[in-house]
């Protein structure tokens, strides 16, 4: 029995000590938590920090994996949840459907400075079909056609681009005319739109309509023959992945490369003479997908009692020219604010931005998740070389499958 008593006493003593030091609820301090990814943490800290200092709010920026920012919102614990997140516009549909982010209203003067497609990218239709804004667009990115001006000229037409590419390819073994990562629906979108393909149509109110799937639309199918000829001539191959494409271009073995502003530094350092343009019009304009990054206010801001502050930071401050200029200079992306955009002086960045003219923001509705897989597969299959699937079949099937998945 003795040992039991001893143990009990020991235990109770320690428990008593512990009970006396129960965690007290932390005092309410005006603080705001932001989730940002590794690329943006530093710039967000600076810019949001400046706002915080002006308003007397402590801003904490937590670094998280980019994809996890969206996923973890569903399951995060209220005490550690963010009030504001930095994310991609194509998350909006899912986040809105899950009630994770709250609607914002911006002043007319602020919204006048943001291109309407960027605002649309961050909007999602409500029950009445009216567009509701959920985020403040801050940066734009899109792929462009990078031309190695030493070996090729800026193409005047699509046919010109193809002939220049083919000629360069024939010049030496191991040369590529045009390199695009194979099987990648995002990078191949300019080709897709150039053939009059689209992903989702719009309804009467201008909202994306998941019932109107454009992947197998008649115009695209009629033009699909072009793809087969590119495959036959070896112009494009799905065996070329991102790394191979990049290496080939940087080694001077490719005339044209389709990539985005994240490669700006690499291009600067490469010593190559390049010019970036939008891919020339084929049967329709060869516009790229637009990616818009921005800030959103989460539903947790309300629970934390900082909703009005968060709305001010996101809906008002982050849309201003000063904030956006600073963010874009640190991140190498074109700012959404038109005044700030006019002030960029980095040549490559300007050219990438210009290459995005008329571009289509990636659809932000949840149904988009059914698209990437099949569209990517179609691209893989059409550029397989000898045993490639005819493009018409590939795209028609992809369209059918996507429709079936969306249900």
């Amino acid at each position, binding site marked *: 029995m003795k*040992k039991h008593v001893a*143990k009990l006493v*020991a*235990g109770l003593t*320690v*428990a008593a000590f*512990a*009970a006396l030091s*129960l965690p007290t609820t932390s005092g*309410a301090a*005006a603080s705001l938590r932001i989730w940002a990814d590794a690329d943006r943490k530093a710039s967000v800290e600076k810019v949001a920090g400046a706002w915080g200092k002006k308003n*007397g709010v402590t801003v904490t920026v937590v670094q998280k994996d980019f994809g996890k920012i969206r996923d973890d919102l569903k399951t995060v614990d209220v005490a550690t949840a963010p009030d504001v997140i930095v994310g991609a516009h194509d998350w909006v549909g*899912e986040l*809105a*459907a*899950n*009630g994770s982010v709250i*609607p914002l*209203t*911006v*002043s*007319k*003067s602020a919204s006048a400075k943001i291109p309407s497609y960027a605002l649309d990218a961050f909007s999602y239709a*409500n*029950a*009445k079909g*009216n567009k509701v804004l959920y985020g403040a667009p801050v940066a734009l990115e899109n792929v462009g056609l990078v031309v190695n001006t030493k070996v090729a000229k800026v193409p005047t037409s699509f046919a010109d681009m193809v002939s220049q590419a083919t000629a360069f390819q024939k010049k030496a073994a191991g040369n590529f005319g045009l390199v695009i990562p194979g099987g990648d629906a995002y990078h191949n979108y300019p080709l897709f739109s150039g053939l009059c393909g689209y992903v989702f149509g719009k309804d009467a109110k201008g909202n994306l309509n998941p019932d109107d799937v454009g992947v197998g639309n008649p115009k695209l199918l009629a033009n699909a023959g072009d793809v087969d000829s590119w495959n036959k001539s070896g112009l494009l191959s799905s*065996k*070329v*992945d991102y790394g*191979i494409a990049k290496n080939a271009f940087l080694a001077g073995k490719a005339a044209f490369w389709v990539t985005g502003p994240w490669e700006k530094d690499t291009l600067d350092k490469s010593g190559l003479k390049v010019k970036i343009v939008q891919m020339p019009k084929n049967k329709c304009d060869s516009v790229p997908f637009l990616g818009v990054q921005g800030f959103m206010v989460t539903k947790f801001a*309300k629970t934390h*009692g*900082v*909703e*009005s*502050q*968060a*709305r*001010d930071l996101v*809906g*008002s401050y982050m849309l201003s020219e000063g904030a956006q200029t600073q963010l874009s200079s640190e991140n190498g992306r074109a700012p959404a604010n038109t005044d700030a955009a006019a002030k960029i002086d980095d040549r490559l960045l300007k050219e990438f931005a210009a290459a995005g003219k008329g571009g289509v923001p990636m659809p932000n509705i949840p*149904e988009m*998740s*059914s698209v990437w*897989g*099949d569209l990517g*597969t*179609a691209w*893989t*299959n059409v550029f*397989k070389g000898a*045993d490639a*699937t005819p493009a018409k079949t590939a795209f028609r*099937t*992809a369209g059918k*499958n996507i429709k*079936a*998945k969306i*249900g």
Partner: protein
Amino acid sequence: MTTPFRYRPSWLAWLLSLFSGTGGLIVKIVLLSLLNAMVGWAIIVLFAQDRLVWALGTLVVLAIFDFVYLRPNKLLPAKFILPGSVLLIAYLIVPIFFTINTAFQKYSTGHVLSKEEAITTNLEQNVVQGEKFFLMTPSRDESGALVLVLVDDTTGQTYLGRASGLEEIDPASVEVDEFGDVIPPAGLTALVGDELFGADAELAAFEVPLTGGGVIKTEGISGAYDSAPGLEYDSARDVLIATDTGVEYADNGRGSFVSADGDELVVGWREYIGFENFTAVITNPLVRAPFLRAFVWTIVFAASTVLISFAIGLFLAKLLDKPKFRFKRLYRSLLIVPYAVPGFLSLLVFKGLLNDDYGLINKLLPFDVPWLFDPWWARASVILVSVWLTTPYFLLVCMGALQAIPGELVEAARVDGAGRWQVFRKVTLPLLLVVVTPLIIASFAYNFNNFNNVFLLTGGGPTSSDQSVAGATDILISYTYKLAFEAGKGQDYGLASAISIYIFFIVAAMSASGFLRSKALENMK
């Protein structure tokens, strides 16, 4: 019968033997007291957080612990098994129950919230914004009531917004400073600093009623806009009603508000839907069609990987199994290298090496093989890479097992005139299998669910044009992933959970029959 081991008095063994006797008793008392103190503390915290069920549950577990460990010489097996079991239950069994629970729910994009949250969110998202936007400064009047000082963004008209209504005031009494902030007229003090933070909730919820319906709401700390509700909630009848058209959206019992026309509101909630997720596998053609194909391929993949790895591992072990074989140690260390590299990294490397036109392997071979692009070659690639990753494990296992087979048995068989191969088949192999079979079965089960090996190498592809969800190398678990996260509206945890449960039953049934039929559990009657 010789005992096949020798007692090795190493420092580790000496250390362990210290724990016997009185030393052990002291350690036991100290550990048990610490455990009680820490868990006791946790229970107190749980009570303080109002989580009575958890608190009681933890208390029960603690009581079991104390009960088991304080009774000398009784409940011996329990004493030894309890620590591992508690962890097993906490982090393996409880999650399984969670998953089972999820399988019975509609838990997917748009069905994540609770019902109340869904209603609030729907109301919020359907607020109709008017034409006006105001610059705003929140302030308090002498009575302490919240008053909004408003300046119309476009017209410049100035107002005071109170809980009672809107009042137009003389523009001259209001200034806008160089920062764009509105300075309230005399008699009102602007809210700043700590007061502003404290008033956050009040400010966000504040509404200025307008004649003719509608309200002015705040947007942040410096803006406001006019609005009207687009949806209203009738709690008595549990319907959402559109204010302009009068269309009613009723609860459809499956986590959504739906109108009579079939218009479904996007924001729904998690709701139990019985066996729907389970029957989807049988009824939904999108799900059903590739299921069988993926199922067959999964078995082929797992079985081939394990059996080939075992065969190669055994072969190499046999080669090395020679007394005084030169470089034995060196060979062993080198052959283990695939095991030392983190699996997913090896997979990424192989993905690059197997690239048709630019990968190293095709460059070294005299002919080009479409490793990852042709369905059949892709299947072969996946198996080959898995074998590469698994063989070292079986090599280790077989090396140990071969060593343990007594040499005298083999000698005796040879003396009786058996040939080398016969000795292997009739003597060595059976003894080996007694030991290794459970490991083979366990490895089979592991590879059955080996999402990584397949997904990182081929992404489940290549997909032929006519197949929708499952690619040529998709195993059941990667197929589940695609179904749940890359179809419909994405992120369908309910469906994924249901299919996971199916997968579990399949693999457990196969493994259980394997274990029971092998003699491995024989000596455990």
